[in-house]
């Protein structure tokens, strides 16, 4: 299936001002954005950054004050009905529906709003219930679901019309670690199952954005501060690559690697981490870029050394945010996870 040539989402000079007292609030301040069909795009920013306002505009719930926004070429201000036929939305903490209905009934009710036939609706509901893992709860009252189960049900609701654009507004908000992981897996499974599915995710969990999104826009105070792949964004604050190596049988120590092409520095780690087994040395390597690693690995092989573990230390997206705005990601630390390490063993 060929992907459409128009952008899935396109905004130009998008601005939204809420007329509040004592002074108006500028929620969006000139957003220019383009999301390609089939892309998993993330909006990352602290609470009040304007993420939800942008989603509300794109889902036709809100009009822009100035500027334009289009979904698959359809204007959010004038072609609302067309957009509503193509998209769906799931928000974190969503409590929609009716508590006295069973899960199956609730989903069927929503299926009717997308024009599914009665039998087709029930069939799709049953398939989605199975797909999201709510088999055991299918005849349970909505009011008796746990928060995680409820969000799975919301996710099934959002997929009833198999949307071309799926808006996820903080979908794991308030979920425990296991439920959040489960929701993320569902999102990714659905996205990967068919090309052309576009997802716009807003989140203030950096690990979530990094794990799921192909490209991310960091937003704050209604503006996009930076946009790119997670790697591109992180490279904004770090031009060099840092690796930690555990090597066995390296007779000359870190000095053996110092002169290799692309190696900025090589040193023995002395930070008091868990003592290595006999003969194993831990080295810190700073390289010009990731590609220099290949030369290091080859050189170690020729020296008869054996790599036990290799970790790459990366700056987090929070570091990027701090670099961009000069303050921490959010006051309550919800998005903070410090540095994380991609482990390759």
């Amino acid at each position, binding site marked *: *299936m060929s992907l*459409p040539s128009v952008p899935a989402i396109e905004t130009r000079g998008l601005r939204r001002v809420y007329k509040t007292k004592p002074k108006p609030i500028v929620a969006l301040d000139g957003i220019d954005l383009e999301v390609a069909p089939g892309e998993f795009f993330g909006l990352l920013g602290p609470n009040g950054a304007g993420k939800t306002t942008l989603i509300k505009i794109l889902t036709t*719930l*809100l009009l822009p004050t100035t500027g334009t926004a289009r979904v698959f070429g359809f204007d959010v201000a004038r072609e609302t009905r067309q957009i509503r036929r193509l998209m769906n939305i799931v928000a974190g903490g969503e*409590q929609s529906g009716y508590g006295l209905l069973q899960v199956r009934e609730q989903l069927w009710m929503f299926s009717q*709003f997308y*024009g*599914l036939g009665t039998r087709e609706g029930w069939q799709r509901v049953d398939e989605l219930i199975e797909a999201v893992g709510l088999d055991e709860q299918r005849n349970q009252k909505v009011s008796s679901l746990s928060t995680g189960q409820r969000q799975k049900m919301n996710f099934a609701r959002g997929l009833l019309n198999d949307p071309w654009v799926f808006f996820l507004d903080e979908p794991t908000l308030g979920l425990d670690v296991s439920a959040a992981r489960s929701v993320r897996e569902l999102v990714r499974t659905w996205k990967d199952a*068919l090309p052309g599915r576009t997802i716009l995710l807003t989140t203030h969990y950096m690990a979530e954005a990094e794990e799921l999104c192909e490209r991310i826009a960091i937003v704050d105070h209604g503006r996009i501060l930076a946009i790119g792949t997670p790697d591109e964004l992180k490279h904004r604050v770090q031009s060099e690559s840092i690796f930690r190596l555990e090597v066995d049988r390296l007779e000359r120590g870190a000095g053996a690697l110092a002169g290799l092409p692309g190696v900025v520095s090589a040193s023995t780690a002395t930070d008091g981490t868990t003592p290595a087994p006999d003969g194993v040395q831990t080295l810190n390597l700073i390289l010009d870029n990731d590609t220099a690693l290949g030369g290091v690995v080859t050189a170690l092989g020729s020296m008869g050394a054996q790599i036990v573990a290799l970790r790459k230390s990366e700056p987090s997206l929070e570091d990027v945010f701090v670099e961009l705005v000069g303050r921490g990601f959010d006051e309550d630390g919800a998005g903070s996870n410090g540095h994380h390490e991609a482990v390759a063993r």
Partner: protein
Amino acid sequence: MTIFARPRTASPMEAARWSPRRQLATNLRSVFGRAYPRLIGLAREPSWTFFEVLLPFLTTSAFVFVYRALDAPAEYIGFVVLGGAMTAFWINVVWMMGAQLWWEKDAGNLELYFTTPIDLMSVLLGMALGGLVASCLRAGVVLLVGTVVYGVSFGVDQWVLLLAVFVLTLTALYGFGMVLASLFLLWGREAFHLAQLLQEPVYFLSGLNFPVARLGMLGALAISTLPLAVGLDAMRQLAFPGGVATYGTPSPEIEAALLVAMTCFFLLAARFMLRTIERMARHEGRLTTRGD
């Protein structure tokens, strides 16, 4: 997870292009979809139904005993039983129609409805249809039990007209409820108080427990504005012909015509108000948002 991988045939541009017929069919399906929770609620919470029947019946019974104590004409007992039955619809309109959009907003449903490709009128019609059917059961029980227990005898000559007036009363009443729903949404948190405020005056002005003509000018005003007042008056005239209900009020035929006019007016007004609400919601960024 085969459902996730089911291929789609249309491009997004094709998928967004619906024929008028498909749009209409979706709106009709939405009516039944939204009616479903109300209908299933009857079976899901039988205790609610029990109390919703019992409480109006107790009120009806109280008036029956008052009229009996006063040696009022026998048809008054029939008036009260008929009024008691119609009470079920009014309570449903005030609480389950009027305040419903506000509650839907509070639950987050309204926002979702706005994101679906349907006309919000379908949601309101669904709420009305579901509420109407559920209330018919309650009203029917009150009417049946009241008739049997208190020995009411009806003298209906024009069954077709009576049935037509009943249906028109409900369409006008639920049209009124749809207008209320929009108004309540606009007035936000005051909706609950407004519902309470409206309940008793409309009981009184609709003459649920006495012939509305006894209110004189006030009754005439009620008949010209409140669907329940005009509908109940017409039904009483038809159910108890030649009695006190026929004094001083228009004929059932005229009242039926009035109900047709009211139905059209309220449905158009509801549609206009819903569009206004959607426009306001999109401009101001509230109305659909929880907690605002």
